[in-house]
């Protein structure tokens, strides 16, 4: 290359960087002059990296809720303006972007997160800057922060009732399989204690690294130990490999029932319905949940993002939690964090899964528990539900058998 060309290119390169910097400056200047008729809200999900597939769908649901609220006249008569940031599937990026949203963009609330690691990364930032996080995913419990509202299921709203149902309907020899991180490990501790209480058998407990895709060893252990039930807390891609290899090994739902805690409609699309048909999952919401609110929600979601898209529990939670926050703000008359927190207790919303209510003490929501069987079209057919919303109990205080887990 000639030196002249090099010179031109180098000028171009610096041009890009300078243009980038000036765009940031312009963006910030624009922010500062922000009109008073608007309320900025943060949206912080992984839009790149391994979690992007799942989290983008949740973001879409949150944006849909914001649009609905704006169309209905906004909050306190003001329009909501989402400020979107990418957590990039890295806890540190979540922490950094949360600081940016709270300190620089001046938002009072962030809707976001998925993995426990991302939530734990944001926690000190939220507490240090007194911001609010609305978190949409079922999780392992054992946490209480005044700055987080937990909209996914606590263990007593997903895992504990699922184990009860399995013991009653599918047998009492359990094989626990999970990805190696905090949710499966803590969930399995809870399940072990619950099984002991019920004189049921824990035949084996296996963990595989995140992203693991070779389940031959695990499957041969399953064939040896012959459990009646596999409680599956694998996450992400591992589910695709596990279910396909399980089906390939000729193990059918008649031989052993698999109940999953992290497989929703979207994951079934990835696994392929034929490999998982006849197995079960425990959630608070399915796309097939029969409520008037859900009919409208699923229809609007597919209209906005494509008819091939499916909804699912985390997507639904992402949707209703924005509405819950908006109602709490209306109740408080301000977006101020302390006042919203005080006003949040008892706030209700008719969500697609049924009525959800914020519990002020734990900052979790009351929600209905459901167990569904996978059909050949990849949708769930509900086989059991709790009948009414279940009170959240993140520290499993109502269960005596759990006391060893929650106390040293």
């Amino acid at each position: 290359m000639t030196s002249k060309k090099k010179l031109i290119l180098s000028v171009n390169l610096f041009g890009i960087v300078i243009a980038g910097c000036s765009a940031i400056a312009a963006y910030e200047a624009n922010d500062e002059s922000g009109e008073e008729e608007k309320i900025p809200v943060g949206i912080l999900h992984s839009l790149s990296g391994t979690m992007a597939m799942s989290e983008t769908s949740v973001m879409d649901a949150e944006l849909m809720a914001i649009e609905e609220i704006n169309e209905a006249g906004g909050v306190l008569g003001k329009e909501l303006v989402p400020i979107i940031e990418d957590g990039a599937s890295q806890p540190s990026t979540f922490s950094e972007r949360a600081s940016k949203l709270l300190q620089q963009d001046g938002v009072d609330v962030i809707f976001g997160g998925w993995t426990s690691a991302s939530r734990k990364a944001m926690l000190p930032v939220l507490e240090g800057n007194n911001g609010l996080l609305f978190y949409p995913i079922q999780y392992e419990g054992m946490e209480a922060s005044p700055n987080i509202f937990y909209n996914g299921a606590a263990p007593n709203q997903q895992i504990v009732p699922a184990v009860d149902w399995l013991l009653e309907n599918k047998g009492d020899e359990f094989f626990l399989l999970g990805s190696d991180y905090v949710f499966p490990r803590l969930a399995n501790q809870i399940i072990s204690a619950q099984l002991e209480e019920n004189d049921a058998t824990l035949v084996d407990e296996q963990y595989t690294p995140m992203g693991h895709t070779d389940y031959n060893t695990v499957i041969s252990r399953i064939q040896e130990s012959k459990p009646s039930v596999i409680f599956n807390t694998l996450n992400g891609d591992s589910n695709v490999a596990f279910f396909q290899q399980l089906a390939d090994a000729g193990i059918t739902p008649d031989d052993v029932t698999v109940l999953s805690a992290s497989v929703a409609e979207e994951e079934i699309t990835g696994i392929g319905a034929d490999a998982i048909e006849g197995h079960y999952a425990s959630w608070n919401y399915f796309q097939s949940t029969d409520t008037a609110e859900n009919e409208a929600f699923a229809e609007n979601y597919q209209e906005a993002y494509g008819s091939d898209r499916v909804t699912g529990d985390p997507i639904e939670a992402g949707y209703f939690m924005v509405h819950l926050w908006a109602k709490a703000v209306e109740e408080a008359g301000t977006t101020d964090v302390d006042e919203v927190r005080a006003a949040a207790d008892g706030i209700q919303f008719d969500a697609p899964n049924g009525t959800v209510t914020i519990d002020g003490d734990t900052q979790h929501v009351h929600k209905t528990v459901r167990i569904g069987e996978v059909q050949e079209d990849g949708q769930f057919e509900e086989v059991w539900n709790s009948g009414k919303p279940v009170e959240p109990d993140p520290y499993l205080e109502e269960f005596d058998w759990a006391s060893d887990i929650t106390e040293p």
Partner: protein
Amino acid sequence: MNTQIIQYFTSRKWLFMILFAILVVLPSILTDFHINLLGQFIAFAILVIGLDLLWGYTGVLSLGHGIFFGVGAYIMAMYLTMASEDSIIPEFMIWNGITELPVLWVMFQHPAAAIAGAIVVPMLIAGVIGFFTFRNRIKDVYFTILTQALVIATVTLIVSRQDITGGSDGLTGFTNFFGHSLQTPSTQLFLYYVSLANLAIVFILCYKLTKSRFGKALIAIRDQENRLRFSGYNTAIYKTFIFTLSAGIAGLAGMLFVTQLGIITPEEIGIVPSIEMALWVAIGGRGTLVGPVIGAILVNAAKAGFSEMYPEMWPYFLGAVFVIVVLFFPKGLMGIVDHFKKRGEKDVSGNSIPQTGSHS
């Protein structure tokens, strides 16, 4: 422009001094958030100086520096966790059925022990690894692959020992640093300048090292290791020393990084970050010390800037910048500086002089 001035200011030393002066005054115009972010980039800049000594000067490419960065960060994080927790044992240990504080944690309860440990422990690890690999003449791509394997092993170990390490959640939730809240702007600003001071010290020491006789030996190892060995030099000792030194620098960087970010997880130190570290060196221009420093800061600033502006598109922009630099500037950003420098020299003497520092 006066060509002599160009030459003067494009020397490595002067480039660093200009950069340092900019970094000293930048906090006065940046927001608190951006000061904190830049402070983290400075921690990366410290790390790449050590990595450049190893790769740029000695020709040994390590794609495993995340380990040393991580060990430094984790040791500091252990102290910070202990300083912030009300209970004797961190909360996550209680869920994992641990009733007594592990020895590993007891060791780093005192801040002085944590600070020393964050630098010394990575050096010990690197010293042992380096001694055995270099003595057995494992080099080039074999060494690089080995370092990658070590990263995978380290990350797997951390994730699987959730009871001691916090698993994939990592260590976070520190609020307290020598009695000061970590979230306040004044503490952040203080940590920024502490990092900057460390950057200057590490740069000056490493710069002097490269200018010394020892530094010449490193370059000789990079360019013709066999010849040097035939001349009676024990190159394994040289390589082990420089590997150990760069690990200590990485540990220092990790320690400074974690106090500013407030979290450390296996993902921060895994394969991708370890490769990225080498990328910053390459983008800046290896074998120049100042180039990698500029590279680390610019790449991370571009990453943050692009992702702020285009949350859904930014990896493409960043990727494009990488492609442009690697394709057209194989010597990195310092290649561009050298280009101007050479023009200046040509104007003075009438003919171009050969570029310094050919790399193998």
